[in-house]
């Protein structure tokens, strides 16, 4: 089992971002020292009502703080971008880090982002698929000629090849069934999303397995999942400490329209915290969180848990303490029990 730290990097308007960045660097150094396996940063543009750090510059800067962590661009909003740009930047990052890059990829769902990049929601699936194809070709072929709907490669090249061969792992984030089938077809693995309930995920894993079967592919060696995680002395204490911040984040997701990308019956991100948390977040005492993780690994087969432990407004000391408790009191039990 690998354990990863996700830093959203989203903070309230008016926060001193230089100070927040110094705090994130402290979290990242601690995670590296505590034996975490990976650092994940998501991406949004126009992240209002939050401030945010851009993903690729952020992950690259954090290489200086984390000599051991894998660096997960999880996820890149793939339809917004041009494949040559991403292929070259990610290859450079893989070279800089000695082969530690993970390429997360997703569709995106916000119009302010599609508009800002001169595209729209109806084009997103086509752009996602052709961008991924072009990137894989650029990483593995000397020169590429390919006409896409929004780019044309004419003997274009990505002369700096990634260190990982044939290319860095591609984790495809997907909430909806169609997207999960696409992940089976185009990705190294499905990057199981943070929002759906575990019961929903078990159903979706059937979709994923069937899709892999139809393609004649085995289950991937690495099966990652994103979860919201918080540890305190007891469940009550954990909910008291993280509840307000985590609930705030999910209220913003709902206002952004994230729920529209989720399956019917499990798409209410505005429910009261206890309802929202149940079977969705890993929150409790160290023993409880360890049990939840062991159960998660047994039922789903996941072997890389990417955890966010801080939400906008939560103090740094709580985030650091949770990292420490996870590494000391939770991970050893999970390793033993799974």
């Amino acid at each position: 089992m690998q354990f990863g730290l996700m830093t959203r990097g989203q903070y309230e308007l008016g926060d001193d971002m230089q100070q927040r960045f110094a705090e994130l660097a402290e979290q990242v150094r601690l995670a590296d020292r505590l034996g975490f396996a990976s650092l994940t940063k998501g991406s949004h543009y126009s992240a209002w009502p939050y401030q945010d750090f851009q993903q690729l510059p952020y992950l690259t800067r954090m290489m200086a703080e984390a000599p051991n962590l894998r660096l997960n661009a999880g996820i890149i909003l793939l339809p917004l971008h041009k494949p040559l740009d991403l292929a070259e930047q990610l290859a450079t990052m893989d070279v800089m880090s000695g082969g530690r890059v993970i390429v997360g990829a997703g569709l995106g769902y916000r119009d302010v982002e599609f508009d800002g990049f001169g595209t729209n929601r109806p084009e997103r699936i086509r752009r996602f698929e052709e961008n991924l194809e072009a990137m894989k070709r650029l990483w593995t072929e000397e020169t590429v000629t390919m006409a896409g709907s929004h780019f044309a490669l004419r003997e274009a090249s990505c002369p700096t090849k990634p260190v990982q061969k044939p290319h860095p792992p591609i984790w495809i984030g997907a909430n909806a069934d169609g997207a999960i089938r696409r992940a089976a077809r185009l990705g190294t693995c499905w990057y199981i999303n943070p929002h759906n309930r575990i019961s929903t995920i078990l159903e979706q894993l059937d979709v994923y397995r069937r899709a892999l079967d139809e393609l004649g592919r085995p289950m991937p060696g690495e099966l990652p999942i994103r979860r919201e995680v918080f540890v305190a002395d007891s469940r009550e204490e954990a909910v008291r400490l993280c509840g307000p911040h985590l609930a705030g984040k999910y209220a913003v997701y709902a206002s952004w329209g994230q729920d529209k990308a989720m399956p019917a019956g499990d798409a209410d991100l505005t429910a009261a915290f206890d309802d929202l948390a149940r079977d969705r977040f890993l929150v409790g005492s160290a023993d409880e969180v360890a049990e939840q993780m062991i159960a998660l690994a047994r039922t789903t087969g996941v072997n890389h848990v990417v955890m966010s432990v801080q939400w906008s407004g939560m103090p740094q000391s709580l985030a650091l303490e949770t990292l420490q408790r996870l590494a000391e009191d939770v991970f050893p039990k999970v390793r033993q029990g799974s």
Partner: protein
Amino acid sequence: MQFVLAIRGQFPPGDDMNMRFEELMAQVRLAKQLGFTGIAKSCHYSSSPWQEIQQIPFLARAAAEAPGLTFLTSIVLLPLHKPLEIAEQTAALDLFTGGRFILGVGIGYRDVEFKAFGTGREERVPRLVENIQAIRRLWTEDAVTMKGSHFELDGAVCSLKPRRPPPIWIGANADPAIRRAAHIADSWMINPHNRIDTILRQIEVYKRGLDEAGKPWPKTLPLAREMFVARTRAEAVRLARPYLEAKYKAYHDWGQGDAMPEGDNDLGQEFDELARDRFLFGSADEVAEQIVGMMKATGANQLSCPIQWPGMPQEVVVEQMHVMAEEVVPLVKQGL
């Protein structure tokens, strides 16, 4: 006077790029130690025959090695990109450099790049202009609504505001581009390709442009030149030639000459002719004298030194960095 280490980060095919990257980080640390005031990184895509370290990741990582220095893009090929992307990415760079970031931009000239980004040469000027406008608005306004030719900002917000809006400089070779730099940018990045006599003519183009726009002389006017110092001019030419000649052959093949003014646009000519009145070769005294001459004639107050050409070994780069910082720059400061 500021002097900047300009890093191309281009290496011959087959080079171990992880090792080359570590060498570049050593150059960045050495630059700080030697008193260089800044680090600049250029950008090309599909950069065959060279392998290249990409610009924005490079600068983000290099910022950790040399706190306190100025970091510049020299240049971002702006018509290829969407303004929301560049505004947000460079706001992160501004933060990582403690507010010491400068956004150098240019229009580009290679079809392989335009096409890969879904655009064309004919769109590059309007895209440059509207992108600059949008980036400035995103950096400074709470929410921006603006319809561009290739993007639409609909109440869009730059997720991170720079500490102060970074200066935007335009790198330009051709007269109309220099005039545009005077009108819409905070400075003109005087290019390393044009002959010195061309630059001296073009500084007048820039001045006229500033006058037309009613703008004052820029706070910083940067000048870039290829240079190499040895005991004698002949030795400098002998040592630099293999690398520099190959680099300019690639420029020629890429079509860089097409972006240069009539009468000074043949980068494919024989090396001695190419070098004459364009590259600065010689002893420390000779090179310093040429720099002083150019800086006095143009009014430039920042010197950008692209020391490493593809294939030049690290030990030669390190030696040239020492010579620049310890011998040439003091002489230039004396001479100015």
